[in-house]
Structure formats: structure tokens, C-alpha cells
């Protein structure tokens, strides 16, 4: 199938062949597993015509103005662009290059490829700047986490202060019972030698 196309193209563009070589631009499809057929070629020529129209305002480029030659089994070929006004006139390299650069994104999108997988030889892709957020997202997450933790700390400290303030009211009732339980505990508890600490407690009262 591909051979037939090659053949046809060679026949059809026999005239343009000599011009194809020196001024040709090379294109390469780097991605493996891309199905290439004549429809894809048509799409490519149409997108290139679109790019030329965008760049050179007013001139109505047609698909026939994009001439392709030197196709290989690897999806790579040369192409040249002729002027719509005069088919024997070639558009110079800089203009074609500029047009492709301008509409690079659209050409890529037509094939659902990226700058890495669709390469125009000698046209380096301009690197897209990564989206920089106005506020870095990590600060937002940090703010949320720290806010929650700080609120927790404040609540905890405040609640323990409030609890401590409430305790003196209950203390007086518990004093006597507490003394009793400790004394009982002393009788059974032979390990902790409480005799001296008891004195401290009573005197402080």
C-alpha cells in the first residue's frame, strides 16, 4: 500500500522532485505504533496549509501547495511549500519554519501527538513554561494542617486551665475521703514507704 503511494507521488511530483531536495524540510514521527496511511498524509498536508495560511495572512494556501517527497518506510519524509499565487515559486525556509513554530501546537493536536513524538528536524520546540500557581498549593495544605493543629493546641490548653479552675470547689469534699483511702492503702501496700511523705502532706494542709 505504502509502496503504491510512494510510486504515485513520485509520478505526480516528478516535476517538483528536483526542487524537493535542497529546500526540503524533514519531518519524523518518532512515536512507535503510529498507523500511517494516505489519509494521515492528507491531514498532515492540510494542517501544514493551515499553518501557512495563519502565518502569511491573505495568501490562500491549498493542500496542493504542500509537496511531499522522499518518503521512507520509517514514517519520515521531506516536504516543500509552493506559493499559491505561482506554483513554481517556493516559499523560503524561514517562513515555513516560522509558520510551523507558530502553529506547532495545532499540528501536534491534529495527530494527538506531542513535541516529543512529532519532530520537525531542525526546528527545536520552544519549551512550554509549567503553570506557576499564584499561591503555591503546598502553602495552602500547610496552612490547613497548621491551622487545625494550632486550634487543637489552644483548645487543649484552655480546657485544661478551665478544668483546673473548677477543681478547687470539689477538693474540700474529697479531702477527708482521700485521707481515708490513702491510709487503707498504706496498710496493704508494703512496698512504698510512705511514712515520711504523709508528714509532708499533713503539714502543708
Amino acid at each position, binding site marked *: 500500500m505504502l509502496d503504491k503511494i510512494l510510486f504515485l507521488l513520485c509520478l505526480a511530483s516528478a516535476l517538483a522532485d528536483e526542487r524537493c531536495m535542497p529546500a526540503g524540510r524533514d519531518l*519524523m*514521527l*518518532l*512515536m*512507535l*505504533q*503510529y498507523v500511517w496511511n494516505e489519509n494521515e498524509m492528507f491531514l498532515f498536508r492540510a494542517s501544514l496549509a493551515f499553518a501557512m495560511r495563519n502565518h502569511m495572512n491573505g495568501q490562500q494556501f491549498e493542500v496542493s501547495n504542500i509537496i511531499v517527497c522522499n518518503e*521512507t*518506510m*520509517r*514514517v*519520515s519524509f521531506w516536504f516543500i511549500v509552493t506559493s499559491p499565487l505561482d506554483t513554481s515559486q517556493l516559499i523560503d525556509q524561514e517562513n515555513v519554519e516560522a509558520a510551523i513554530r507558530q502553529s506547532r501546537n495545532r499540528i501536534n493536536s491534529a495527530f494527538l501527538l506531542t513535541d516529543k513524538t512529532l519532530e520537525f528536524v531542525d526546528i527545536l520546540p520552544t*519549551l512550554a*513554561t*509549567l503553570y506557576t500557581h499564584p499561591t503555591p*498549593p*503546598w*502553602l*495552602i*495544605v*500547610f496552612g490547613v*494542617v*497548621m491551622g487545625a*493543629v*494550632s486550634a*487543637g*493546641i489552644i483548645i*487543649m*490548653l484552655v480546657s*485544661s*486551665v478551665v*478544668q*483546673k479552675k473548677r*477543681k478547687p470547689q470539689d*477538693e474540700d469534699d474529697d479531702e477527708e475521703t482521700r485521707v481515708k483511702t*490513702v491510709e487503707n*492503702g498504706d496498710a496493704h*501496700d508494703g512496698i*512504698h*514507704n*510512705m*511514712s*515520711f*511523705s504523709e508528714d*509532708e*502532706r499533713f503539714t*502543708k494542709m
Partner: protein
Amino acid sequence: MENSAVEERPKWDNKAQYLLTCIGFAVGLGNVWRFPYLCQIYGGGAFLIPYLIALVFEGLPLLYLELAIGQRLRLGSVGVWNSISPLLGGLGIASSIVSLLVSLFYNTILAWVLWYFFHSFQNPLPWSSCPLNVNRTGYNVECEKSTPVDYFWYRETLNITDDIEISGSLQWWMVLCLVSAWFIVYICAIKGIDSIGKAVYVTSTFPYLVLTIFLIYALTLPGATDGLVYLFTPEWSTLLNPQVWLDAATQIFFSLSVAFGGLIAFSSYNTERNNCERDAVLVGVINSATSLYASIPVFSILGFKANNAFLSCINENILALTNEFEMPDQNITVDNYDHWVNYLNQTYPDQFSKVPLNDGCDRQKFLDESVSGTGLAFIAFTEAVIAMPGSQVWAILFFVMLFSLGLSSMFGNMEGVLTPIRDLKVLPKWLPDEIFTGNSIVFILCCAVALIFALGSGNYWVEVFNSYVGSVPLLIIALFELIGVIYIRGMKTFSDDIYFMTGRRPNIFWKACWMVISPLLLLVVFIFYVAVQARKHPTYPAWNPDYVDFPKTETKSYPDWVFAIIVLLCSVPVIPIPLMAIYRLTRRIMRRSSHHADLNPYNNYAFEG
């Protein structure tokens, strides 16, 4: 409101809290990023043999000893050793100092984990691609020469200087993360075991949940089986290498977090009649089982990563060949790559030699790349995560798991510092207790000192602390602990203690271990460890973009003043042991000469000298 010491001492709400806290303390970051590494470099499955032997004969006896003595004497690490013998009082202080120093750098690692966690909420992940250089003509040079993951870790996270002597400035973002980490530890540990006991319900169980999720997912990844086969294929010849046994014993020792004083503190809050033998065996076995369990997803993911690296390497070569020879797509595939290479080399040798092929596309080579520590978490794993679908979810899960693991270990570290301070009643009485002033002051001081790790050279200092504080002093403390309990307190008294607590005396296995095997093992480990460290002047890997072999790290040796600090870090924690002994001894001699009876009811030592 002065109460007797019995009532004032806090208690665990239930047994589960106590067990979860001990398990959380023992299970830490090392289980995830040190044990798999050791398995990898020491012949896979074969490493389990020295590891389990070390667990049974060294780890479990030490663990049982600490839990038992803490539960019996019901005091923090300082009080416990004072009780056994006033000459051993320095042991508790040594434990506290080590716990303090370890807390300082350990929380810095948690700060790094937090930083990565905060950054996991973006699409695409910030470590997936290089930033552009200043004039936007290409990518940042440092990033291009290394990898985006390396760049994000060394430049955007640490902003590391190329030498430990160059301190750089305080990185404000790292200060924020450090303060956050300390705040989180503060809110969990401020009320002592009242708050820790609740926090561990989450921090100790969550890692297991995440590990299980990762286990299931990682096993479905392509290349996972390569990683697992690589991990578990035993290479029995490594057992003849003494270094393997040494590393197994060292790993068990540091993994169980003994000698920090934290375990003694935790068990001192127990009821008196609690079966600490069963607890010790449970904690030790669960710790080792977790290490093993964690190594499965780690290695599956490393296998996946190696597979990816291999495939991208091969595909690059295939592309280069396809472009050069202008063949149709899909003629050369990964499977028939070698066949094509041979054919093309023979048929078109000149053209073939012009193609820039990467020779290092070897599956085994990618699997052999071993990483541990921060390299595993922040470089290898983050790189693997980029290749997984739904990267953000996996990254978030992973970093929350790391944070939980580290947080529960931090609780033990801080308890090793806070409990002795409370028991010693060091702080003046007029400080209001409502706002937990004592604990708060400790936290604020720790946070302030830890800011040195937020400098440009912070990572180098963390390495210094990690290698020297968390190693030799602990071995010495553990050795003295064994001697102190078994020989100074006496095996008979200790057996009676255990009989009182559990209702049975320790059997012949425990006795043999405590009296002979464990001290011997510890001594051997200690001697070998010091010998290995002292053999060469210590060096460290520096990240220097101007280095000739960049992105490889440059091996620099520590300057003299850092070396002096290293010696200080090793010796300052252990100096209290002899100092306190000498101090108490001189006091006793002087006291005897002045015939003054000391009736301190808390110290139950027979006062006949």
C-alpha cells in the same frame, strides 16, 4: 494538691494502648527503609537467618528486661537506675540525653516527610519534570545532569550546600515544616500518655493499612515479581561474611528502640501484675514481622521501577536504531532487540557504530541499585510513584504512612526525655502545671535547637547525628543495663520481681540469655562496630553540582571541628555513667565519715555501705 506517688502516676486506659504504643515506638522508619536494604545487599532470604537469631538471643531478652524493670520499679529511666543502685544513676541520664539528641534529628526527617506530603497535592507532581532555566531556552542544568527527582530533593527541598562546612542560610520553607512537625508531636505528646494513648490508635495502626494497600497494588505492577524474586532468592554464601551477622545484630538492636528509656517509661505506667513476658515477645515478634511485611511492597515497587528504567533504556535504543536505519515502526521490539542489534552490526557495521546506543540496558543492573534511608523514600519511591496511575493518591498515602511511623517513634523518644524530667522534679514548683509548662519548655527548646537542621547543610548534620548518636552510646547503655539488672540488682532479686509480676519465674532460656549470651553478643557487636568505624577517617557523600563526576555524590572527609563534634556526640551521652558513679561514691564516703544517716524512703538500698 499533693498526692502520694502511687496515685499521681498516670495509667494506661487499657492494655491495647500500652501495646500499641510500644509497637509504634519499635516499628519506625527503619523497618521500611533499612531492613529491605539489608535484605537486598546480604543475599535476600539468607539474611533472615542471622536476623532471627539476633532477635531471639539479643533483641527479645533486652526488651523483656526493660519492660520488666520499668513495670516493677514504676519509675522512669532515671528513677529506675537510681533505685537499683545510686552508682548507676548516670545510666538514666545517659538514656535521656540520647533520647533528646535522637528526637532532634528524627523530627527533621518527619519535617521532610511533611514537605513531600504538602507537595503531593499538585498535578503534575513537582518532582516529575525539570524546571526551565533562567532564559527559558532549556531545562535547568543541575536538573538535566541528574534527574528531576534528585533535583527536587537536593535543591528544592534541602537546598543543600556542597560541603558540611558551608552552613548556608535558614531555609524558610524547611523551618515551616520543622515547626509543623514539632507542633504535631507537641499536641500528641503534651499530656503524656493520656494523649499518646489515644493518638497511637491511629498512628500505630494506619501504617499497616497503607502497607497492605501498597502490597496488593504493588503486586499487580509489571516487574514486581522480578523485584520479589530478587529479594527472596537466598544467597547462602553471604552467611560466611561476619559483616552480615554484625549488621543483623545491629539492625535488631536499633530496630527495637531499647536503651532509649522510652520503653521503661511506658511500662512504668502499667499495673503491677501484668504479664510483661508476653508483651515483650509480642512486641519483638511484631516488629520483625512488620519489617518483613514492609519489604514485600518495597521490593515490588523497586522491581517495577527497575523494569521501567530498563524498558525506557531499551526503547531509547530502539528509537535511535529505527531513525538511523529508517525502518518501519514496530520492526524492532523489546523481544527481538538483541537479534536486530547483532544483525545490523554485522550487515552495516559503519552505520551501526554511528548510532549512539546506551550500553547499560541491563535488567539486573537496575535491580542491583540498592538504596536505603532517605534515598529510598525521597528519591527511589517518588520516582516510582510518577509512573503509577493516580500518582497523587499513592504519594499521599505513602507519606502519611511514613509520618505515622515516625510520629509513633517520636512519642517514645520524647517520653524518654519528659518522664525523667517529671520524676526528677527538676523544674521549680512555681511553674503552673495547667499549661504543661515543663513539657512545653522542653518542646520549645527542642524546636529551637533543631533549627540547625533547617540550614543548607542540615542533611549532612542529620547524617552525623544518625550515625554517631544513635549507635555507639546506645550499645554502651544497653550493656550497662544488662549488667546493672542482672549482676548489681542480682538475678535472684530480678527473678523474684518477675515472679511477683507474672506469677512465674523466668525459665532457663531467659536466664542464659541475660547472664551470658546477650551481654556477649552486645560486647562483640560493640567492639566490631567501633573497630569498623575507627578504621577509616569518616567521610560523607556531598552533593556538589560542580563535581567532575556529577551526578554522583562526592566523597568528602569530615573537617576536624566536625570530627570533634562527632566525638562529643559519642561521649557526652555516656559520660554521665562514670561521672555519676564517682559522684555518688565520693558522697557516700564523705557521708560515712560524718556519720549522718540518710533516711530517704524512696531509695531502698541497704545502708550499710
